[in-house]
């Protein structure tokens, strides 16, 4: 049995949606690494990096969430929609937003909650992107 990937299959994510979703992964990952660097070096610039990376990641995930909702509205009539993806994306965004508020505290006040949340959100976005980029296709095949 041969599996062929059909690029024009209606279940595939729009390239922009894919870009936003996948783009959020290195941003959240970078925030986590920056937090780790700050917590181990006390060099303040790392926590500044983390703050902006989280802000960028929130923008990407926010727009990806918007795309997911649009997909859901458009797809609901034709496919059995995979709810776990937008749900995970929403959870990631909310936790990421809380993390952004934590990172708005001054100096060491961001720690250790900031690092813990950054790790959780980094894991979440990896899982979310994985599911988002695979389930659509299987969902379509089903």
């Amino acid at each position: 049995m041969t599996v062929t990937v059909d690029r024009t299959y209606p279940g595939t994510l729009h390239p922009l949606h894919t870009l936003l979703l996948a783009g959020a992964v290195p941003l959240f990952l970078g925030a986590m690494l920056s937090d780790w660097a700050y917590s181990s070096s006390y060099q303040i610039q790392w926590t500044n990096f983390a703050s902006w990376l989280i802000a960028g990641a929130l923008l990407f995930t926010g727009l990806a969430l918007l795309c997911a909702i649009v997909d859901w509205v458009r797809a609901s009539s034709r496919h059995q929609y995979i709810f776990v993806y937008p749900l995970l994306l929403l959870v990631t965004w909310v936790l990421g937003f809380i993390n952004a508020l934590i990172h708005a505290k001054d100096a060491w006040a961001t720690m250790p909650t900031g690092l813990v949340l950054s790790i959780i959100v980094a894991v979440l976005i990896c899982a979310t992107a994985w599911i988002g980029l695979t389930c659509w296709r299987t969902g379509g095949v089903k």
Partner: protein
Amino acid sequence: MKTLNLCAVFLVSLGLLTGCGSKDPDPNQYGSNIDLPTPKRGLLPNMTIAKPAEWGDQVPVVPEGFSITAIATDLRIPRQTLVLPNGDILVAEGRGGSAKALKPKDVIAGIIKAQGNTKVKSGNRLTLLRDSDGDGVYEQQGIFADNLNAPYGLALVDNNLYVANQDALVRFDYQEGMTEASGPPETLVELPKAINHHWTKALTASEDGRYLYVGIGSNSNITERGMDAEVNRAMVWQIDAQTGAYKPYATGLRNPTALAIQPGTDVLWAVVNERDELGPNLVPDYLTSVQEGGFYGWPWAYWGNNVDPRVRPENPEKVAQSITPDYSLGSHVAALGLDFSSEVMGPDFADGVFVGEHGSWNRSNPVGYKVIFVPFSDGRPSGPPIDFVTGFRGEDGKTRGRPVGVTLDPSGALIVADDLANTIWRVVRD
């Protein structure tokens, strides 16, 4: 009604986020023996920003037996004033600071806090006010010097007028009766100017005129710009008026916004603005005599040996050295003005200091927004503060003015600079 409900929901959520309700209980935080709660901060800092309004026909409220008038309006951000020997009043006008946003938070906080300040452009000048006939109306108003860089502290020693710009301490030649400087000033010494998160350079001179004292604020709230940015910050410099040679006179003073020498002594006093974002009742701003060589805690500790957990690396040695200030003015009042009183202000206000309080942002229930009097006896603060000029923040929640510098006029008046209404107020005994 719908709007009201929405507002209520928003306020409640804000309350949850900030980790407490809309009421900030007022603990005992005046004087030397004060209550300090444990530090706390929710997901958002408590914020109430002044809503500016016009004075219209209203004026600030003063005690019975006193009256207040505006002697100059439409200034360009008046901060500190100096009463010259002939009764003329010099006003330093301007706004400084070049701190760039480091985090998304700085961008947002900058926009929010700007709501509570004047929209007028920085004057960068000294204005001279003159009342030739002594009727209390300052009919003459002119520019004494222009093209300065956010001037703040002012001091006169003999024929030398010293002005603390945000980047340098400069000197003008001054002859009594002058209405305009004879030329550009000469620089006595460059002051720390990088970033200038706290840009105001407070200034006073020793009674013999030999030394000048300059207050230099920290470059951050609590080291969030890194320790490298704090070299030569959060301290008072003692500067030789002849040579410009300087040394740190006292350190660990987060933002010493006004300095004054106690008359008849060589004791330096300061009002200092303490750190934010530890809760509505931390950390108290204070009034203190400044000990030579003393360390007052910032950034590692506050009010003596209370450790600030936000500073890394920790420094237990410095925490142990930290001096407890003399007199707490209460948290977040933002004291920006200080001057000693004298008999000319009447028996009730003869012995003590006046303190101008710009008012809080980091509190649900605003505090400050007034001029207070701290009574002294035997040369030390001796009782709770007394409201002297109030009404800057009205019952309607609108803010009409924000006091900065306070200066005693030896002819029998208190001069108050208001940097929101861009007005100079004069309080006299009836």
